[in-house]
């Protein structure tokens, strides 16, 4: 006969105050002692760009940068990284300006369904911060823990190489063609898209 024992999930573990710097901002949360960083980031801090793919360290969708290292937030106890500087995908861009790695992923097809994209971006960003001229092998090693089911990785590698060029200052940052406001305030008399009767 099939057993019925369950590991009890309640009562929950005791709570403690957890603080860290997430995307440059100090955050303080009341977390359970056993909390996993991924859960804290998604459910409490609210950085939903950190994705839950497999929850067991084999897809890389939950990758975040912790004190400069790209790490898996699903296999990380929040308590162990209290006080750290954590970067999620939300922290990559500066205001409305995409980081080179972001615009290159858009431009070169590095993102299809987009679910693995935040993880790849952070793995790649951690690599480029350390090394702006990575070899093919270094690139593949940096993203070997990230799983992508759509792209076959090739266009992801293209994207990372293009971003590396921008990091090295060899190429101009690209704005993806689909960016609606490459130049939000065009000079000259024509303010586009103004409906008739709309006084300026």
């Amino acid at each position, binding site marked *: 006969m099939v057993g019925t024992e369950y590991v009890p999930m309640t009562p929950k573990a005791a709570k403690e105050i957890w603080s860290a710097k997430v995307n440059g901002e100090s955050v303080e949360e009341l977390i359970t002692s056993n909390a996993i960083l991924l859960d804290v980031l998604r459910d409490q801090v609210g950085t939903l760009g950190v994705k839950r793919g497999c929850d067991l*360290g084999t897809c890389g969708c939950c990758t975040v940068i912790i004190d400069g290292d790209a790490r898996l937030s699903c296999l990380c106890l929040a308590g162990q990284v209290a006080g750290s500087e954590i970067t999620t995908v939300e922290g990559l861009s500066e205001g409305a300006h995409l980081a080179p790695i972001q615009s290159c992923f858009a431009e070169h097809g590095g993102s299809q369904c987009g679910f693995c994209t935040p993880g790849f971006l952070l793995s790649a960003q951690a690599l480029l911060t350390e090394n702006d001229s990575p070899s093919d092998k270094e690139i593949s090693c940096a993203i070997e823990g990230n799983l992508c089911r759509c792209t076959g990785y090739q266009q992801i590698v293209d994207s990372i190489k293009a971003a590396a060029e921008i990091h090295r200052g060899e190429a101009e940052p690209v704005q993806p063609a689909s960016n609606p406001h490459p130049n939000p305030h065009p000079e000259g008399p024509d303010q586009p898209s103004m409906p008739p009767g709309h006084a300026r």
Partner: protein
Amino acid sequence: MLMPPFILHHPSTVEEACKISAELIKKGEDFDWVSGGTDLLANYKWRINTKPHVISLSNIPGIDSVSNLEIGCMARLSSLEGSNVHPMIAEAAGKVASSLIRKSATLGGNLCLDTRCFWYNQSEDWRRSIDWCHKADCGTGSDCRVIPNQNTLCVATYQGDIAPVLMVLGASVHLIGPNGERVMPLSEFYQLDGMKKNVLEKGEFLLKVTLPKDSMKRIGSYQKLRVRDSWDFPEAGVAVSWLEGDKGSIKVATTALESIPREHKEEVSQIIAEGWDDKSVKALAGAIRKSVKPVNNTALPPNYRRSVVQVLVKRAFSQIK
């Protein structure tokens, strides 16, 4: 996947860690150690052998040092990759799982890796449907699902990469706990039972690994068999090293074929001591094949894993001569 409840303790010195463990033992409370968490937390999410307390070693300064003769338990595998440790250690560390995991995973965690089995590394729902297994759910009185009706031993497989390499470099492990520190060769650290795994007593943890002075002079090779060059645990692994020119110094160890990594002293002394040529390597490979007993609980079938150990041995030897 929700983490089952536990209290996380953060000692900031080794002494404090020992104190916490002693107190918990005294109170009769069960606990686990956690370093990087990449092995333990995955099992906890599956609700495998969870404990009400977990003691983290990550806040203890100084136990992550890396040098060519001494490596602390909290040394991240990624920090071993590019360091001045023996190139075999760097290579084996670089082959563990994926680069993301290696940023968290530690040497201590890798050596104390829980043994693995596809009847065991499953969710609670899954294990319930097979009426549990005797490793995962101690106390349920269940049978082993790999080899039913066997004795009480667990045959889950040890799939660490670094242990065989450290073994052939002659490494020792330093264990510490409420009752003090002890040192032993790594080859005596493991116990042939997938449940007990190693000699660690309750409250003890692996503090550091030390290597003999001549270990840096050793030339060696680690051969890892896996399906994918990322993520996968070894399906078989062979480490070989020697002090160049000294046949008597040859050491061979295997991993991922049994519940423990194992140094093959007897086979080596019987065969290679006689002379080292293609024929004797082949004979040694055959002897090792015979001595290991993989079971059907990893991704690839045991017959295959056992057969190709010979190839791995052969290749390892060809790399170091």
